[in-house]
């Protein structure tokens, strides 16, 4: 386009727009004459002008300001941050920078998470987040990360938590394929944490492998309770101010909150969430742990969202031919799109997971002990194992029968065995002797009684 040509376009564009729509076409035909391309250019610009929507009407500047602020805080090693001394950056999450720091007052290591300014602007929401995060930490649950301090240094809000050696479940999944036992061991601990939190009225809202830490000693820790609420607040905050600027909000790393892969259908729809959202996300995590693939992964986030809302994930049995049908049932029930059909409370899910875990452990023990000895020595062990079960009723009925039988065998058989041994004749002789003795005594006693009156009558 040359400036001269553009000048022509400009004049015709405004002249046409000044006319009523029905006269524009005739006007342009006349004005452009044989210059078809000029007419086409002006017409297409007019139709672009008349298109609905708020294209670039709202300034990008507000979003750019957020961007600046999000980029602003970056701490260096050995730098002081309030009462903490920065040791090293640990990572950068959607929720802000995380550092390993030393708390000189108490001489301990902490994980220091800096919250992006865009999350902390609204003090009401910040306070609610703090309440929830503290409440979760106060549960003192072994699977919930302990918060030491939530505070502010020079306008930057931070959370100081216990520092966990180890890696996130995400990192672990990158280099390890989990078997059902290990997946269950992890899932049971996450579910336990959620059960405690839900009982206290706290929903996590953002369960995903990035928020789960695995300690080398086998402990699993769930991170970031309440944090999702802060970024959800961002959504409301923006939508009640200037909706069109939302178009640019996504360029801000501070507002990036994570993957959509673990979002429940109700979250994807932007509906109110409840505890059942955590159950869904946990189902996704469990599916991924067991199969090594994300159940709703799509090429783009919008494809993923479409899968979450519409499609069922590939059946577990298809990916893992020898998967436990019970595990498949549990995951399917956690991943019901209609939350009314899902597990309603996380405790039910916990019971099912625990039962399955014990069942698998029991089966593994049996296998190790060797099947032929089932009625013998291993029977007693099986019986003891079943007494330790804290929810014995959840076992499949066939398994229960087998255990009951094993228990009877274990307790009654020794007595019978002894009776059947070669020592049984002396016993019988002893019984005969006792019986004979008693009979004799009784006879003597009764006989004497009868004799005396006879003597008196004499």
């Amino acid at each position, binding site marked *: 386009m040359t*400036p001269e040509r553009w000048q022509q376009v400009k004049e015709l564009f405004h002249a046409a727009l000044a006319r009523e729509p029905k006269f524009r076409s005739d006007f342009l035909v006349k004005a452009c004459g044989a210059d078809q391309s000029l007419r086409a250019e002006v017409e297409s610009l007019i139709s672009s002008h008349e298109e609905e929507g708020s294209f670039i009407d709202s300034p990008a500047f*507000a979003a750019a300001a957020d961007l600046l602020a999000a980029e602003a805080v970056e701490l260096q090693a050995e730098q002081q941050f309030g009462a903490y001394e920065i040791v090293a950056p640990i990572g950068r999450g959607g929720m802000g920078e995380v550092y390993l720091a030393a708390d000189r007052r108490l001489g301990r290591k902490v994980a220091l998470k800096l919250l992006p300014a865009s999350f902390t602007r609204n003090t009401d929401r910040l306070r609610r987040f703090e309440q929830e995060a503290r409440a979760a930490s106060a549960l003192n649950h072994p699977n919930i990360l302990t918060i030491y301090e939530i505070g502010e240094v020079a306008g930057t809000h931070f959370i100081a938590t216990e520092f966990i050696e180890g890696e996130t479940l995400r990192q672990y999944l990158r280099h390890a394929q989990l078997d059902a036992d290990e997946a269950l061991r992890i899932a049971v601990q996450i579910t336990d944490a959620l059960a405690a939190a839900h009982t206290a009225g706290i929903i996590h809202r953002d369960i995903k492998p990035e928020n789960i830490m695995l300690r080398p000693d086998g402990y699993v820790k769930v991170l970031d309770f309440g944090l999702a609420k802060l970024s959800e607040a961002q959504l409301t905050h923006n939508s009640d101010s200037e909706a069109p600027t939302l178009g640019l909000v996504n360029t801000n790393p501070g507002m990036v909150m994570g993957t959509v892969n673990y979002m429940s259908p109700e979250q994807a729809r932007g509906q109110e969430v409840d505890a059942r959202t955590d159950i869904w996300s946990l189902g996704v995590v469990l599916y991924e742990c067991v199969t090594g693939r994300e159940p709703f992964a799509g090429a783009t986030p919008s494809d993923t969202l479409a899968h979450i809302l519409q499609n069922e994930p590939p059946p577990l049995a298809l990916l893992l031919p020898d998967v436990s049908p019970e595990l498949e049932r549990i995951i399917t029930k956690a991943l019901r799109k209609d939350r009314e059909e899902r597990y309603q409370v996380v405790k039910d899910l916990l019971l099912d997971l625990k039962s399955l875990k014990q069942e698998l452990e029991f089966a593994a023990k049996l296998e190790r002990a060797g099947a032929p000895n089932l009625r013998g020595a291993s029977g007693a062990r099986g019986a003891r194992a079943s007494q330790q079960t804290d929810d014995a009723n959840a076992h499949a009925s066939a398994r229960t029968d087998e255990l009951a039988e094993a228990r009877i065998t274990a307790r009654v058989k020794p007595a019978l065995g002894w009776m059947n041994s070669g020592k049984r004749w002396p016993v019988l002789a002893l019984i005969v002797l006792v019986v004979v003795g008693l009979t004799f005594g009784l006879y003597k006693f009764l006989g004497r009684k009868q004799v005396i009156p006879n003597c008196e009558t004499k």
Partner: protein
Amino acid sequence: MQGESVTQLLLEWSDGDKAALDELLPLVYDELHRLANAYLRRERANHTLQPTALVNEAYMRLVEQQHVRWQNRAQFFGIAANLMRQILVDHARQRMAAKRGGPDQHRLSLTQAERVINRAEVDVLALNEALNKLTEFDAQQGRIVELKFFAGLTIEEIVEVLGISHATIEREWKLARAWLRRELSA
């Protein structure tokens, strides 16, 4: 001191000293950066950030108004608008790079998740390219878009900054917007 130097640099630049701009840019950038942070910290519920307030405050703080001509104000706002554009574009590029590889792929906000469904995003990179093209044959329209979209100035403020009539700016904006929109939808 800083006010003096920015004022001085603005004057030197408008007198034709190209090197003055190189010194000016980082000063303006830092001030915008600092102000943005301060604003975000101060901002509370029901008090949304006014985009122009930022550029205006940077101007008030950096430039001694009694010593500059009105053209210097226009220059300053032009610089600020251009910097904001640059910041957005750089960030969008980083985001693209992260999307192509890296662990950050598929990350997005809840807000964005909703928008993925509604399809109302503005592609900053595409907009930037289109704006470059537009500026080649109509520099004035390019400036207007930068000031209005990237610096958040109102039409009235742009009238003051560019010294063009309100009607002209509205007409120019209308056509520029239509052209950019067509470019982006192609």
